[in-house]
């Protein structure tokens, strides 16, 4: 049995059973898993976690699943890299990169889906579903395949070929929806209410979102059981942003780390920046936007946890980056060229925002800062391919090689 006690409304505090529900019937607030922390405290220690599997399931005492055999394809426990070169380039002395490109389907979505799939199976669902612009679709398809469940995955019609392939290889029922993001949203919201499927980020959302807090657990453990001073996190729905802090707070609540004083800063692309725009306006009310950015994995114009993200920015004395598509590409290149990590466009948003926050003086150079890189670059290769230096093309002679090698090279293919 898990240590989960109930689902609780984040707004009015009403409790609900641990069922497939996600919204409070009274106030429409989001439901969140509540745990029996006294029981967690009795069952867990630093040693017991360190002896656990090298996946997010090492933190199972903090997760809402009962099963002894979770759907685990190896999500989590990704590297925390000491980013000295990037830190030097940005003027940060204690910078780390949490490299979640190292997950089984190359994005942090494997964390949330591993838990959602396990819980959906426990709740009796035989079919998983989602609506996604890429990473979530890839992960749902893979977890369904590995668990013997079936999957129905909805994607916008114009999705890039690499992202479609990243789902179709696992043989889900893949549905391309014609129309803009609003149309896809509306259809999928209706489907989620009509079909008895485990829609991972709708009716299973309270469990799904718990996967994100494992990033907080891991960072604290990998830093030697302490919370970082500052986290910089890309904001899409906002769930990842608020759950990383929840992870740190839960560790403190059961005595595994000291009370965290972590500043939480966000990162958004200017082409879809409802949270960043509200933050700049000093408001806790964001205005929904119609996304237009190369960072499609962050293209959520009406973020479910937008309000809570803004509250967290305020509570933790954080800040929020707001960066252009050109800055995103520069961020992707800077991360690759300094740390050897090829991130997708969302990673470019994080690195570009990190730079922006440093330039604004919002991050102190000596703070222990962790930047979260949430997806791998091959998924969005089209975004940078035009801006990279071309290879040298030579004849098979020493002379030809030396002529080409000694010639000054352009920076960027089209420079």
């Amino acid at each position, binding site marked *: 049995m898990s240590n989960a006690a109930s689902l609780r409304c984040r707004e009015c505090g009403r409790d609900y059973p641990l069922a497939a529900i996600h919204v409070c019937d009274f106030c*429409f607030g989001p439901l969140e898993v509540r745990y029996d922390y006294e029981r967690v405290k009795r069952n867990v220690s630093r040693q017991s976690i360190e002896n656990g599997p090298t996946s997010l399931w090492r933190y199972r005492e903090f997760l809402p699943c009962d099963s002894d055999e979770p759907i685990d394809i190896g999500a989590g426990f990704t590297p925390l890299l000491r980013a000295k070169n990037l830190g030097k380039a940005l003027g940060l002395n204690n910078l780390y990169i949490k490299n979640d490109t190292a997950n089984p389907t190359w994005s942090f979505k494997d964390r949330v889906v591993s838990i959602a799939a396990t819980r959906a199976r426990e709740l009796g669902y035989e079919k998983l579903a989602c609506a996604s612009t890429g990473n979530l679709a890839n992960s749902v398809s893979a977890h369904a395949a590995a668990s013997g469940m079936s999957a129905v995955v909805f994607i916008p019609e114009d999705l890039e070929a690499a992202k479609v392939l990243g789902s179709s290889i696992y043989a889900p029922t893949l549905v391309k929806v014609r129309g803009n993001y609003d149309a896809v949203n509306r259809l999928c919201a209706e489907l989620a209410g009509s079909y008895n499927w485990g829609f991972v980020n709708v009716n299973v959302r309270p469990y799904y979102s718990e996967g994100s807090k494992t990033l907080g657990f891991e960072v604290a453990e990998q830093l030697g059981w302490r919370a970082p001073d500052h986290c910089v996190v890309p904001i899409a729905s906002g769930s990842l942003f608020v759950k990383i802090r929840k992870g740190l707070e839960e560790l403190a609540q059961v005595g595994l780390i000291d009370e965290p004083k972590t500043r939480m800063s966000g990162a958004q692309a200017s082409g879809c920046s409802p949270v960043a725009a509200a933050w700049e306006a000093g408001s806790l009310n964001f205005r929904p936007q119609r996304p237009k950015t190369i960072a499609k994995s962050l293209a959520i114009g*009406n973020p479910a946890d937008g309000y809570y993200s803004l509250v967290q920015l305020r509570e933790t004395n954080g800040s929020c980056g707001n960066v252009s598509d050109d800055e995103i590409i520069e961020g992707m290149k800077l991360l690759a060229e300094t740390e050897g990590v090829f991130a997708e466009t969302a990673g470019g948003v994080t690195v570009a925002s990190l730079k922006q926050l440093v330039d604004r003086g919002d991050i102190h150079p000596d703070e222990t800062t962790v930047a979260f890189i949430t997806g791998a670059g091959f998924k969005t290769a089209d975004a940078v391919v035009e801006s990279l230096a071309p290879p040298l093309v030579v004849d098979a002679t020493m002379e030809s090689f030396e002529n080409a090698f000694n010639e000054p090279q352009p920076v960027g293919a089209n420079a």
Partner: protein
Amino acid sequence: MALKRVRFTFPEGLITEPVIYRMGHEFNVVTSVRMADVDFDTGWVILEIEGDPSEIARSLDWAEASGVRVDPVTGDVLEG
């Protein structure tokens, strides 16, 4: 009969317009405002709409055509 919950976001130009009242008169739907925050230049309303499914769909198309942004009550379902 069906019941649907949606979130309306009003742009500044529609703040003073009785959009929900008109929707209830032009279409055979019953509207109930469950939560709202309306300011002088923007506002949102969480609305329950009861009626025949096709009539609800027509009423929402009309609201969107009038300039209201219509979203699922829980935020975007589509994720990265």
